[in-house]
């Protein structure tokens, strides 16, 4: 029996060094080495922002690994419900059914607003149309308007582009633009709306097709595409999306962006979320074309 003791000690030491080896370099992560890994998944709108945050945060805190993947808001929330991610990114609010489903899995989804985003309506630079009212955009996407000449453009068919139905941007656009924010309205996208699987797909098609109209998060719209100025009502002012127009609410299609956690965040997850809401990380938000979540302007020194 005795000859097993040295072996057991060696094994124990081995296990100990292996499990603590990489973490021992950093003092604060030693308490919970498994939590030094943050799994972050969801909205494709947020994915670039989340990546930029993760990169910056990891370079400041080398002991923490953050893995960021896209897939759509629905995908992120579904993963949170299934317990496979720590942080779910969503460009829409979590639905009641999803909250219930999470509860039945023993998960309590807690919401954090991390940035704001404007949805830009984009057309090809060859298209002479510069401004539309919300109602006109709604009619275009629901199929009531099918030719650019009806909204002051050339005699061309309108090709409607949208994200897939699993995209939070899609759902937001449906509720805010197509249905003009009315809960009773059951208007749907025109059946021949093209559902493209990615933001890049929409941008590439709008770039080369003068018939196309698309929508996407402001942070994704490249400079060479034309962004449409939008008026809330006929006769109102036409407003282009930008940080000031989103913050003073004059641009009508803007929304909050969210991250969801299981319960109130603790430990490194809390530190990461606090950092995200601090000015340094919110600076990155502005750089990527989103609108910082600091709703109350910070007191000037």
């Amino acid at each position, binding site marked *: 029996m005795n000859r097993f003791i040295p072996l057991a000690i060696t094994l124990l030491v081995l296990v100990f060094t292996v499990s603590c080896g990489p973490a021992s370099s950093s003092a604060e992560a030693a308490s919970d080495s498994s939590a030094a890994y943050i799994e972050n998944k969801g909205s494709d709108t947020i994915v670039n922002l989340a990546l930029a945050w993760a990169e910056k945060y990891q370079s400041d805190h080398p002991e923490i690994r953050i893995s960021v993947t896209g897939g759509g808001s*629905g*995908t992120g929330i*579904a993963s949170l419900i299934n317990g496979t991610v720590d942080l779910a990114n969503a460009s829409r609010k979590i639905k009641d059914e999803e909250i219930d489903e999470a509860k039945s899995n023993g998960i309590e989804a807690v919401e954090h607003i991390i940035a704001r985003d404007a949805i830009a309506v984009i057309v090809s630079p060859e298209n002479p149309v510069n401004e539309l009212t919300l109602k006109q955009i709604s009619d275009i996407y629901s199929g009531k308007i099918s030719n650019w000449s009806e909204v002051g453009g050339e005699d061309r068919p309108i090709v409607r582009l949208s994200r897939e139905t699993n995209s939070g941007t899609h759902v937001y656009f449906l509720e805010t633009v197509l249905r003009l924010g009315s809960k009773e309205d059951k208007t*749907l996208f025109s059946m*021949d709306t*093209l559902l493209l699987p990615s933001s890049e*797909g929409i941008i590439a*098609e709008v770039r080369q*097709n003068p018939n196309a109209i698309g929508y996407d998060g402001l942070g994704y719209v490249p400079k060479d595409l034309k962004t449409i100025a939008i008026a809330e009502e006929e006769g109102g002012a036409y407003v282009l999306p930008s940080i000031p127009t989103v913050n003073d609410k004059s641009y009508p299609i803007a929304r909050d962006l969210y991250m969801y956690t299981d319960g109130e965040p603790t430990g490194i997850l809390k530190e990461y979320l606090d950092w995200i809401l601090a000015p340094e990380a919110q600076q990155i938000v502005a750089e990527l074309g989103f609108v910082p979540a600091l709703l109350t302007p910070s007191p000037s020194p």
Partner: protein
Amino acid sequence: MEKSLNWREFVITRLIKASGYSAILFVALIFFFLVREGIPTFKEVEASSLLNIRWYPIEGHFGILPLITGSLIVTIGAGLVAVPFGIGTAVYISEIAPRWMREILKPLVELLGGLPSVVLGFLGFLVLSPFLRVFLDLPTGLTALAGSLLLGGIAVPTVVSVAEDALDAVPRAYREGAWALGATRWQTIWRVTFPAARSGVLTAVMLGVGRAIGETMTVMMVTGNAPVLAVKLGSLFSPVRTMTATIAAEMGEVANGSTHYHVLFFIGMVLFLISLGVNIAASSVVFRAKKRAERILS
């Protein structure tokens, strides 16, 4: 010595048998799984709304007709591209091309078959669909036609390599006999070699069609994914949504066990039954052709 040889023989034959049967087992298991996850659809969605023409799953519109017709029109289009093109190439490689040409062409076609479909989809999205829009003056190039052309391209290598093998397997004596009777090269190919290789060529066509109907990534990128009922000839020139693209685009987000989830599995079941049908039709034709050939020979 004798005994251990027997024993080894026993193990080896059993292993081979098991791997043969495992194919049946896997198909059965897959089908069982599809049915188990897909059948609840009938309880949750009425048959009449399944046959609706609106597919908008996040608001409970589960009409799968646009998806079925979308898949069919893209596959038929792909067949129209791949079959003549593939068989023509196979005939050229096997019957007409000089030896050196053949040595170049065959590996090239196989290389084409190894291209990842996502790469083709990317090319289709950035090059083919803008070209189609301008060339045919369409509202958008993201159409069933773009999907058909690319899927045809994807199916061609399959058709070529299987059909070429079949043509190659026709005994040389057949051709020599035809030439001896004064048949021209074309007559020999069309009347002798081709009919002799018919069952193999048909298998090639079916494998190609099977490849086309199951392809996902490319169609998702180039067909526009608009769930419109595609029953007119003009539908070829407008966007469609296929069953495979629907499953691929939506499976990632559905909550496990929801109605939408079951309907997606139901679509998978339909897809499975369609390819099963194609395969059964093909093998019954091949079987009948074989029988007749045997009668003639005897």
